[in-house]
């Protein structure tokens, strides 16, 4: 949970952290807080998991990772935890989740995101996943992204 002060801090930082020598002092100044208070609030939000980390979001397209495949799998429910952990640990899998199926349209319950320089590279990595899943996998598909339509991250709505 967050209080009003946390909320103001999140709104001030959702666009990003300034690239200046003392970024927290600059943000604190804009909020009428002192730097120590802001930093202890941020530390507290990190300990509660509200902030996962302060880091860069790279643009994988600009880094030559132009193929981005969402691999999806229909895995036996009883084995999805064990197999999902193995897939999530693969170095080339950037996100891996169990999600509900949406039958009859969507039989898949395991999602693993794979990036590569081209589709051949993604297909090679996908074959590695298929080999690990083996007989526990009943159906599979891959959805390549063809366009980023929006990428802003979380935005709080203005209150009031």
């Amino acid at each position, binding site marked *: *949970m967050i209080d009003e002060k946390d909320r103001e801090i999140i709104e001030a930082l959702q666009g990003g952290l300034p690239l200046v020598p003392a970024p927290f002092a600059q943000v604190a100044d804009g909020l009428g807080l002192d730097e120590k208070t802001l*930093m202890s609030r941020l530390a507290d939000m990190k300990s509660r998991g509200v902030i*996962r*980390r*302060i880091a860069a979001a790279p643009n994988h397209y600009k880094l030559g990772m132009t193929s981005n495949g969402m691999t999806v799998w229909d895995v036996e429910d009883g084995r999805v*935890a064990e197999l999902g952990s193995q897939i999530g640990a693969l170095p080339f899998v950037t996100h891996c989740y169990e999600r509900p199926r949406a039958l009859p349209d*969507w039989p898949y319950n395991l999602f693993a995101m794979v990036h590569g320089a081209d589709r051949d590279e993604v297909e090679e990595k996908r074959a590695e996943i298929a080999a690990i899943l083996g007989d526990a996998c009943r159906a599979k598909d891959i959805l390549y992204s*063809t366009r*980023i339509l*929006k990428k802003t991250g979380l935005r709080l709505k203005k209150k009031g």
Partner: protein
Amino acid sequence: MTLDDTDRAILNRMQDDLPLTAHPYAAIAQEIGIAESDLLARLTRMKDERVITRFGPFFDAAAMGGAFCLCAMAVPSQDFENVLTKVNAHPEVAHNYERTHRLNMWFVLATETPEGIAATAEAIERETGIAVLQFPKLQEFFIGFRVAA
């Protein structure tokens, strides 16, 4: 833009957590073995050139008492741009990708309350006349997005 080895070292390091200290960039510059001013100049350039889409805290809506949900829609191609405008107009839509499938629009909703997911999905269905399938995460097997630069 072309990235040199120093840019790549910065990009790899900056995908990990920034220390919560008064001069965090100085600390990272020292780790990498460059001047703070050089680090800041290179980061600014990579952000301007969109090699870095964003630098800052990654928030978890669920830990704030809200929720995230992956959603998908099957949008007829002739309506795609029109539907896209309506979907993206919602501030709750944090990311949106076009994908190669009958379900061709995949987006993430981030809302401040758990009820916000259903409310936003229903609003999008009402506005577009297209079903919004919801795929909330049941288990996460890996945390942290990393791309080797």
